């Protein structure tokens, strides 16, 4: 690593801040009172957050988002890992076909299933429920494909040694494959979580009951119910927006390197 050039470093910092300035400014705005904001004065208040959480139900939306994204991630990564393991380690009748069908989902525009999925879930009475939000998002072809490639890189002798010791295939998966694929599984879990957290069109059509809104829907509605430009309560909207961004932002700061590595591992091989 070359020594740091302070001028370049300063410029880079300024460029980064400038790039993020809309979001940074929106966070700052969320601490202003409406009156101060429209009068162009400086102030500080937590009132917008209190209103977003209390009056506008954002605590509930946050909980809903956590439940939905959490369960989608947990179930999705489990199913993807199991399938990836079978695709990587077993040759079985129809296996290639099923793997191709899994990979092909990457090319299929998800919107073609929008109307049929809506009708299916309406028929079984699962619209307006957590299950209705979660079920269509569970299968993740990309994660399965990615993990299969990763597992293939793990030496097979490890499996064989375990089988010699009398392990079952489930034990091999749980004791050998999963621990050795931890970085890949972690980055895929993160990828699923972020994708689901930011999912918009499905909860938009699948949920009408306000108590089941995710943060994305709650925020879009809050912004849209504001009567018209000029009258918008921007500080309140920005507080809600900050609540929506924050969990992923914090996660990002904690695991940025894993995330970037996961994403690039998927793309460049």
């Amino acid at each position: 690593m070359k020594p740091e050039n302070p001028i370049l470093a300063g410029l880079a910092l300024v460029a980064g801040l400038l790039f993020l300035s809309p979001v940074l400014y929106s966070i700052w705005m969320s601490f202003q009172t409406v009156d101060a904001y429209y009068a162009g004065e400086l102030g500080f208040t937590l009132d917008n957050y209190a209103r977003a959480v209390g009056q506008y139900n954002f605590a509930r939306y946050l909980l809903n988002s956590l439940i939905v994204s959490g369960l989608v991630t947990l179930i999705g990564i489990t199913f993807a890992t199991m399938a990836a393991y079978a695709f990587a380690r077993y040759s079985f009748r129809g296996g290639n076909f099923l793997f191709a069908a899994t990979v092909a989902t990457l090319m299929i525009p998800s919107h073609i299933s929008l109307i049929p999925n809506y009708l299916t879930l309406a028929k079984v009475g699962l619209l307006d429920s957590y299950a209705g939000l979660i079920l269509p998002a569970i299968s993740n072809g990309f994660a399965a494909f990615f993990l299969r490639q990763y597992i293939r890189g793990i030496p097979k002798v490890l499996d064989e040694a375990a089988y010699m010791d009398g392990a079952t295939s489930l034990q091999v998966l749980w004791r050998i494959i999963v621990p050795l694929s931890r970085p890949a599984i972690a980055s895929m879990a993160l990828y699923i979580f972020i994708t689901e957290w930011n999912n918009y069109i499905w909860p938009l059509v699948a949920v009408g009951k306000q108590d089941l809104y995710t943060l994305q829907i709650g925020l879009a509605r809050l912004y849209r119910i504001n009567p018209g430009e000029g009258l918008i309560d921007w500080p309140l909207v920005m507080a809600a927006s900050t609540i929506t961004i924050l969990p992923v932002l914090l996660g990002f700061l904690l695991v940025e390197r894993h995330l970037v590595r996961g994403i690039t591992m998927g793309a460049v091989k």
Partner: protein
Amino acid sequence: MMTMLRKLTPYLFVAPLMIFIALFTYIPILASINLSFREWNFLTPDMPFVGFRNYEQLLASRDLWNSLWVTTLFAVLSVPLRLGLALLIANYLVRESMHVRLLRGALFLPSVTSTVSIAVVFSWVFSTDYGMVNALLGTFGLGKVQWLQNPHLALWVLIFVNTWKQIGYDIVIYIAGLQAIPRELYDAAAVDGGKRLHVFRRITMPLVMPTTYFLLVISVIEAFQVFTIVNVMTKGGPAGATDMLVNLLYEIGFVLFDIGRGSALAVLLFILLVGLAILKSRIIGRKVHYEA
């Protein structure tokens, strides 16, 4: 018994994933095709078969051609902008140092951030009376611009927002691609006294071609499915200027509840995207092979 079980093992492992893929991806494709030949609005008890009528109505409507045009314009304008800028920036950010890492993080951040939040924040940034952009223009003595209400500008605003959000992802992928280029090539070019631009065009660009191809495929597919920023920022307006295909699909299917016509549009979108993907792998796939 044991051998039976052993034979079944892989099927048991793939079953949960395959069941969900079948239920929520493949069967819906067939269902969409079926529904596209029917007339239904959720309320009537039966859904009569109407042949190609939904397709005929769609293809005869101005909305569809407008959406196709707007979406194509969006893709054609935004994808080269994203990839070009991303490659230039990645070419600078490929080195290792603290400030480069910070800048990379800052650029990457929006791509994992909530699209709705970003759309809301940029609705403010481009709002006429209190927005950041007009305030900035004001300090230079320039008048207020109605960014999102002007049919000639709204699409550009969406292109800007989409680029702002996605470029960090492109950059990260490009950096990985650039890191895979052998250093010796650059060293050899330096010995030969290669000019920077020349090195960029003769070495960097051809050798990141596989990465460019990958990004091209996914960003075109993405561009044709843009919905969230449209739904939050413009609702397809003003006067249809940003009425992209998925927005039209949403309007027909879930605002007008015209299931048949909505499904026909979904099928057309499906054919279009799969066709594009095949076409690209035919044309560019060969080229990548030659140069890499």
